[in-house]
């Protein structure tokens, strides 16, 4: 493939990774900040677009590797598993269903009629969002300031290990809580709503009035609307407010004996968003910490002395010693550096001038002269 196209593709993916991180943060921040449904809907569309792009990217990479017989290598050594986890599951579990719900008005996923089911699905979708953070790892392929391939590999590996450990711990613990029915705030809320409805219905006697519904709303602050046989007998806000602030997943409803009760899910979603933002920052700070603190440490204590010794061995005129910090002097690399300083350099000082001829000038500096010869001979031909 043309190098320019490949470079464009790589740059496009890097920009997409950075944007998707911003988008992931904003999706949760929007819930906390009470952004309007229209704004949040744009974020859902953009989330779908990103997941779609990354899914296509993964499939292109995978099938290209497959055609070369390197699919296994790509998936394991080339960290294709990160590409996979950060694309297809998200498209299927997170942005895909959300996108379809937007297109079909929420009926595909959320038309189940049960608040418990809705909360379970919302939770499953939100758990999958954690996998997006794995995309940060792809950025580490582009570390340029540490030129040594060894340093790049080590920094990338430690980042991969740290971030995947955090992400998978969060993911599996969330799955355990979700699927083994361990008590959670969402289900506690669900039980509270059911208890409220039972009490409301039993105390209504000859038929509950709007006044009793209002009483129920003071008892349960999540109650939004009460309807009987399709007619609204209580509504906390007017319709324009619901249209502006609420989308699918933001509310749940329970239908029983001709009564419909709509509840606000925003508090549950806000708690979840707080956790998501917290996880997001843990991963981002972890990455930054590794980059700011560990990468230079690795460079200073491993690659730099190796680089100095390599130059000393390969360049006749390079005779600088390896600087040995007092507190790391017992490290293997500095013990080697000490031997290089004490044994090799003195030996080199004695022999290099006689044994090797070296010039700082290279033929590349005079290519124009050399080409001039080619030009003249070709013109004479």
């Amino acid at each position, binding site marked *: 493939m043309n190098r320019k196209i490949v470079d464009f593709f790589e740059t496009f993916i890097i920009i997409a990774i950075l944007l998707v991180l911003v988008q992931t943060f904003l999706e949760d921040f929007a819930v906390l900040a009470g952004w309007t449904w229209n704004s949040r809907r744009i974020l859902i569309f953009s989330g779908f677009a990103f997941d779609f792009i990354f899914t296509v990217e993964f499939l292109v990479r995978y099938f290209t590797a497959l055609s070369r017989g390197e699919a296994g290598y790509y998936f394991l050594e080339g960290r294709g598993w990160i590409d996979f986890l950060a694309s297809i599951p998200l498209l299927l579990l997170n942005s895909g269903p959300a996108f379809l719900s937007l297109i079909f008005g929420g009926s595909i996923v959320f038309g189940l009629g049960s608040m418990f089911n809705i909360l379970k699905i919302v939770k499953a979708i939100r758990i999958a969002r954690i996998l997006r953070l794995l995309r940060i790892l792809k950025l580490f392929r582009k570390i340029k300031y540490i030129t040594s391939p060894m340093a790049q590999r080590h920094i990338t590996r430690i980042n991969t290990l740290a971030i995947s450990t955090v992400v998978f711990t969060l993911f599996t613990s969330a799955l355990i809580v979700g699927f083994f029915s361990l008590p959670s705030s969402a289900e506690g809320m669900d039980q509270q709503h059911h208890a409220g409805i039972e009490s409301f219905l039993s105390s209504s006697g000859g038929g509950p009035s709007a006044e009793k519904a209002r009483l129920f709303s003071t008892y349960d602050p999540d109650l939004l609307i009460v309807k009987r046989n399709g007619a609204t007998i209580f509504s906390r806000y007017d319709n324009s407010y619901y249209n502006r602030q609420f989308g699918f997943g933001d509310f749940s409803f329970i239908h029983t004996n001709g009564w419909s009760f709509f509840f606000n899910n925003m508090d549950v979603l806000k708690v979840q968003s707080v956790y998501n933002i917290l996880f997001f920052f843990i991963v981002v700070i972890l990455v930054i910490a590794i980059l700011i603190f560990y990468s230079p440490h690795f*460079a*200073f204590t491993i690659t*730099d*002395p190796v*680089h*100095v010794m390599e*130059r000393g061995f390969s360049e006749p*005129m390079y*005779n*600088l*010693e*390896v*600087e040995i910090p007092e507190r790391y002097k017992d490290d293997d690399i500095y013990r080697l550096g000490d031997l290089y*300083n*004490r044994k090799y*350099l*003195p030996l080199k*000082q*004695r*022999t290099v*001038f*006689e044994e090797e*001829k*070296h*010039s*700082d*000038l*290279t*033929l590349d*500096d*005079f290519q124009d*002269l*050399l080409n*001039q*010869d080619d030009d*003249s*001979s070709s013109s004479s031909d």
Partner: protein
Amino acid sequence: MVNKMNKEEEKAAAFITRLLSNPSLNYLNPLQKEEQITTFLELNAVQLFPTLASPAFFPGKTWTEILSILQPQLASMVDEMAAEGIKRYLFEKIDFGFLSSLPNSFPFNEKMIQSLYNIIIRTLKTNSGRLDFIGSYNALLYKLPHHYLDDIFESQTYIHFELIKVQRLKMSKAEILNMIRVSLMLRSSLHLYSEGVFDKSSGLITKQYAIKIEKLLKKDLPKIPVELISSAVKSYLPFEKYRFVPTTGRLTSIFNAMGKSIRPHVRVDRGASSPEKSWLSVSRRNYKYYGWDIKMLDELYRYSLENNW
């Protein structure tokens, strides 16, 4: 025929000028540039020959013939540049007032400087003298004696004691500095009389040989005090064996060798020691081989460490 020679010389001069002005040689002195270019021509003969034998340069010539045109041109251009630098040091930068502090000195005059200049220029006509002078030239360019002498006088420890009490130099710091500078410039003159007769790797000679050379040099420089000649010539003696080597001679030997190796303008890689510190540290381990005074190296190393040179 004359015209043809002139044309060839012009072409050679243009080619050599091009080589000399290469940015990778910017920080080198003229003699080092010459060394680099000679090596470059030697190492890349195969690739350069088709170009240099083309009609644009020297058509029909063999490589040896091409070299015989290029090398004298290179030497002449380098000589000119080096002579200019040497003249500047001798006639402008160095104050020869220190000569009057040396015993049995003649009244200082311009002729003495001219005689020094002549002998240095003659030295540069010898291959080994030319190579050896690279170190001294760099030591002066990089002001090695200058900045170490500041610390030597400030700390007043071993080297200061050796200069003042042992060598008994009754001079100021500036005068000692100038004596070392001249000693450095005069040192390579040994090669005028002894090309190829001493240990090339360590650059050391014997006491008997030093005495012989001193006599010959004295003959050529009758007005220059023997102490100065001795400092320059005895800088080739191993201190371990000959403890009488003057302190300025020992410093001359160290600065000359340091000047040959270090390149202060080179970018120091992260994780590497500075050039002078590295050189002094390595040289402390080779002091016996090169006949240097270990205590002197230790002290200079300490200064390089403190100043991160």
